[in-house]
């Protein structure tokens, strides 16, 4: 019964913001993997060829960082770690094994989502700074050429960390938590979904909407 009643989880603006970061990140991921290993260079061919991919990768990368900044303005308060999140992280194993009844209650985002957010947030900065060096290596004097190779190693490491986080994020939203993908597409979740996964957020929003009525 309660499942048929939907409540808004993400506003239209939040969804546009999310898909903008998702699209720009995925483009950089695909072209970046092509430059990373010869076994995936075919991705660059599919996306219009190596030179085209190399031309757009840094430009789309900067767009990703800008989209991430926008997201930060909107979500940084929701993403602050709380005391309960620390308890949550101590129970990560139970969460991974779907013993959700053992988990402390979560607000709008649970500790895992916040960790993902901060991994992408700091990852974006690392990728931006190292990426700028790789974009214009000719401006790094040869005497300090180690900065160029250090930038590449850090860029690859940063990318690998965000790829790990990204795999978990996509797996969870598409497969592990039914309803979360639809929430990001259409904005709404069922009351049962909200109560199960984000009880504190559900209680707060229902209180707020109740007081308005």
């Amino acid at each position, binding site marked *: 019964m*309660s*499942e048929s009643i939907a409540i808004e989880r993400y506003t239209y603006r939040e969804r546009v913001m999310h898909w903008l970061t998702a699209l720009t990140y995925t483009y950089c991921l695909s072209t970046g993997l*092509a*430059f*990373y*290993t*010869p*076994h995936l*260079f075919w991705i*660059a061919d599919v996306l219009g*060829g*190596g*030179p085209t*991919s*190399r*031309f757009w990768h840094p430009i789309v990368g900067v767009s990703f960082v800008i989209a991430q900044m926008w997201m930060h303005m909107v979500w940084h308060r929701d993403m602050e770690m709380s005391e309960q999140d620390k308890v949550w992280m101590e129970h990560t194993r139970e969460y*991974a*094994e*779907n013993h*959700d009844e053992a988990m402390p209650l979560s607000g709008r985002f649970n500790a895992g989502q916040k960790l993902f957010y901060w991994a992408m947030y700091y990852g974006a900065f690392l990728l931006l700074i190292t990426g700028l060096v*790789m974009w214009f*290596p*000719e401006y790094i004097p*040869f005497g300090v*050429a*180690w900065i*160029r*190779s*250090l930038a*590449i*190693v850090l860029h*690859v*490491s940063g990318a*690998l960390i965000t*790829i*790990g986080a990204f*795999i*978990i994020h996509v*797996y969870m939203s598409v*497969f*592990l*938590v*039914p*309803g979360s993908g639809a929430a990001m597409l259409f904005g709404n979740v*069922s009351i*049962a*979904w909200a*109560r*199960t*996964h984000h009880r504190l957020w559900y209680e707060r929003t229902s209180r707020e909407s109740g007081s308005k009525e």
Partner: protein
Amino acid sequence: MSNGTLQIKAISGHAGPVPGRDASRDYDVCKLIDVTTCIGCKACEVACLEWNGYPFRETTFDNTYQTMPDTAWNYYNLIRFNEHTAEDGTFSWLMRKDQCMHCADPGCLRACPADGAIVQYSNGIVDFQQEHCIGCQYCVTGCPFNIPKFNSETKKVHKCTLCSDRVGAGLEPACIKACPTGCLHFGSKDDMLDLAEKRVHQLHEHTSHTNAGLYDPQGVGGTHVMYVLHDIRDPEAYGGLPRDPHVPLLVRIWKGPLKWLGNFAIVAGLLGAAAHYVRFGPKKVEGAE
């Protein structure tokens, strides 16, 4: 360009084995530059431009005989003038023809991600194939000699080809042909090593250059361009010739352990997610059981 004398030995950014890998022909080509007989006339620079069809570049003046600060995407070959004061106070001009060294272990090729953009022929020539170049400049980072140069208009990187088009047709490189003092030599690597040894011996015996020696750095597996220097102890004095060049350590880490660790982690992450789904399945919503 891949005819009989230009058999491919290694290709950049190539998935799987390379046709002709480890192929060894009976000779490697090599250029020997005897800097002790170079007069800095720049005939080699002009010959290089003429053969490759590039215009002469504007020169700059910085109170020395250095005509321009560096090689460029359309200027492969530059004489470096260095004013040098020896320990005993004697003054000399050191002139070194600076161009691609054609390393046996080329850092540019190791770093390049584009399939076939950099090839190493079995005769030792390392050549850029601009039609496959994507303009990422990883080669610029991989090179210990600061050789590859980027054309920001075409987004392609260029460098000395050791005249692979001439060598492939059985000719010597253009610079060799132009040298008036005979300080440039070209032949098989073995012959050039022999010649260099004789010249170094001659310098030791008959001149005051008792520290003369051959520059064939083993850190990059030896090079297919070698120098005879007056003083092998101080290659830096010849316009920044590195004492012990290597493919940068961070480039080797990136293309070695970091790549395999990353590949493993990505595949393990994907398989792990699939295994998790099979083992635990999706999360359930309260009351839906």
